[in-house]
């Protein structure tokens, strides 16, 4: 799997965010990530699934079989209450992190 630890945590965060608009199946989640990051993040599509299962094991998402728009069966994932809470926490943590690093990087040599 490519990427650093930071990357894996980021993936979880993105998945949780993707689900805030309602249940999605794995393929749709991948599509949302590509679109909303303006194709900046290129991930292998299969990498999503272990991440999704880990989130399910931690109780942050629920899973259920359903039917897609194209009439194919797929497994849908839905955010749980605990998942919502986790998303809020991780999001604010991420923002603080970015702000801190950014502040450090924007210092110019005086």
């Amino acid at each position, binding site marked *: 799997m490519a990427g650093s630890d930071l990357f894996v945590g980021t993936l979880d965060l993105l998945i949780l965010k993707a689900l805030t608009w309602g249940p999605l199946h794995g393929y749709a989640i991948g599509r949302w990530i590509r679109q909303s990051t303006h194709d900046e993040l290129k991930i*292998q599509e*299969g*990498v999503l699934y272990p991440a999704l*299962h880990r989130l399910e*094991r931690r*109780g942050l998402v*629920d899973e259920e079989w359903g039917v897609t728009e194209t009439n194919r069966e*797929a*497994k849908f994932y839905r955010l749980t209450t605990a998942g919502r809470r986790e998303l809020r926490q991780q999001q604010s943590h991420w923002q603080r992190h970015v702000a801190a690093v950014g502040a450090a990087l924007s210092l110019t040599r005086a």
Partner: protein
Amino acid sequence: MKRLLRLSLGVADRRRDIERELRAHIEQRTDELMAGGVSPAEARREAEAAFGDYGAIAETCNTIRRDRDRERRWRGAWDSIRQDVRHGLRLLVRNSGFTTVALLTLALGIGATAGLFSVVYALLLRPLPFPDDSRLVRVGEGNLASGESGFGISIPLAEQITAESRGLEAGGYRIGLAVQVRSGGEAREVQAAALTAGAYKALGVSPQLGRLPDATENDGQGSAVLISHGYWQRELGGAADVLRGTVQINTRAVPIIGVMPAGFIFPSVETELWLPALRLDDRMRNRGVHIVEFVGRRRPDVSQAELQAELQRIYENGQLSEPGSDAGHRIEVVPLRRWMVGDSRVAVLMLFGAVGLIMLIACANLAGLQLARVASRSRELAVRAALGAGRWSIVRQLTVEALMLGLAGCVMGALLAPVVQTLIVRAYPGGLPLTTQIRIDARVLLFAAATALLAVLLFGVLPALHAIRSRRLASLQAGMLRATAGVDRQRARRALVVFEVAVAVVLALSGTLVARSFARVLSKPAGFDTDRLLVLSISIARDRLADERVVQFYQDLPRHLEAVPGVISASAANTLPITGGDSHGSLSIEKRSFSPGSEPPASYRRVLPNYFRTMGIPLLAGREFDARDAGREPFVVIINETLARQHFGQASAALGQRIKVGVPDNEPWLTIVGVVGDVRNESLEAMDPQATYEPHPQRPWRSMQLVIRTQGDPVATAPAVRRALRALDQFMTLGEVSTMRHRIADSVAPRRFTTQLLVAFAALALLLAALGIYGVTSYGVNERRRELGIRSALGASTSGIRALIIGQSAVLAGIGLLIGIGVALAVQQFLERFLFEVPATDPLSFGITVSVLAAITLLAAYLPARRAARSDPAAVLRE
């Protein structure tokens, strides 16, 4: 919630599920590409490439899900158990009556059985403080003809065995003695043991400090001493320079050469000093004098039977070379442990068995109560079953409740066990042997846990299993449910009652038999007047008074004692009746010959003048000893009635005849000058068949037991007597003052102890069984309210209904009685060991047991029966 109810998929299902999901993704990608105009084959290839390493991803997902399923399973089980515990606690608190009874029963039962187990284990199973103790044996002698056994052996035989035996790796003998030890100005009597070098070797124990006696110290003068660990700590304060110290033994300062390890016991807990072999004078060194205890270590490749046969051969060879004085005996080889533990073994085992039986009855009662509780919860359980809880979840619920009770009971019982242990050790008359081995350790706690588990099984799980087996548990028709399940439960409870009654009958029967035996023992006449007799042992050390002066000292003694106010008469003997400790030897009669060993050995003792008058032993012919019998020719002896009758026809005919007891052939004959009544010399349980008495000057002895007949209370006279003795000699060793009554009570104390306990247990068992009968009858009456109401309405009289109920309980008790009697008859042989002159089939005891059982059954069944007869039929039928 959905999470909890979701069934976890099997392994194959899991893989398939993951495959479906991953495949679906690839299909979607493929579709998208195809919609963009790519060919199906190309689209699929691209989709799969974009996906990544399918195999690795699928495997990772599988692992994650597998771990998730496992976690869920555990959490589910843990949650249901937690639920059971909470629910169970609530129920137990609500039914506080049952809970209290159950906890008390378990705590007492487990505590008692565990406490007794610790004693049984220490006495019978825990290895003794010697290396490889299973090979240690004690060698004794017995007489086949008289059935007596367990004597010590003679010094010549001991030396012969040490020299000639090949089956023994090492062996030697011990002489037990009490010595006077002075420390810090105070003198006290201490138990000591003088062991030969062979005996030390056989035991195989090395001192913790110092060394064993060496060759120079084995000269027989007692010039070195080993002290016990306890003595070192208590008397010498655990001083580091102990090996430079001495012990003041009988006015001599004996150097300490070693300290034995803590926990070393030989031959009993009371022995505190060990000496090298002592040299006794030659009169003690003949084959007729059974004075030493032989201990040996058997070779590993020799069995006990082989050793016994070899020693018997050695003994018989010895007889050939020195015939006459000790013939016809049988050598007895006993494992040392068995000899050290002695009679207490049987008593303790019996108590353990009795407590176990009581525990069984108590658990049966609890099981009955539990069945009743299950009945009252039948509605709740039925609802559970209807909701799909499954039979096993109900069993689990009931088991968890029982386990909680069991755990609490086990902890309480474990706290109680040391108390029980201390009680037994303190209360056992004469003290239990090997007390330093008795302690509470992991084994005892494990036993307590096992007992708790067994109890839980009996009263918790079995009723639970029974409850779910009863048919139509799922049916919510309360009436039907009660009828069918109720019948099953009643049958189970009745079976429990029969069981309880049977066990109680066994205990009650044993108790009655043992009590009758005890009464018989007490009823036996002692052969002398036991009233107002003061008893006191004294001893003169060798360095205080030379041998020649000892005789005169004792001849003068009665005169000094009779001068004390309150004393009617005084005398002495070296061993007294009832308390035993007599010496035995073979009997020879002048001008008669009988085959050696065909007669029981005669007991012999030395007495002062007026002994028989003081003791109140009737003189049937001839005279008492007096000033004439001063240890010169002609040597005299007095014998008892049975001996006279047996060999001479009648008492008067014995006078003038001559006999020898326990001496080699070259010793002079003794002339019979008197015949006295028979006395129970060893214990109350048997008359001494052949007793002989010699005047003290003929066989002087330094330790004598004084007997003083007093006007009033003997104890009141004791201080004056002590003062008189001290006035004669300051350094005399004085033993404890006691009365003959007291000594007799002590001699039957073990029997009294077991009798009292067994009777108490029997009473407890009967009480518990009565409670069981009451419970079952009461419940049955409740269940049958309607039927009884109908009977009453149809004209049955109140006494008729009462009789019906009582009759049915009586049937239960009757079946239990028969089973109990059957068991008692089956273990007859085991019971006979405790009985005295009462057969195990004694009709009176059976009669008493049956009557008591009938009475308590009547009583237990009467109250519910009366309630049944009194109930208003109209009210019941209206329900």
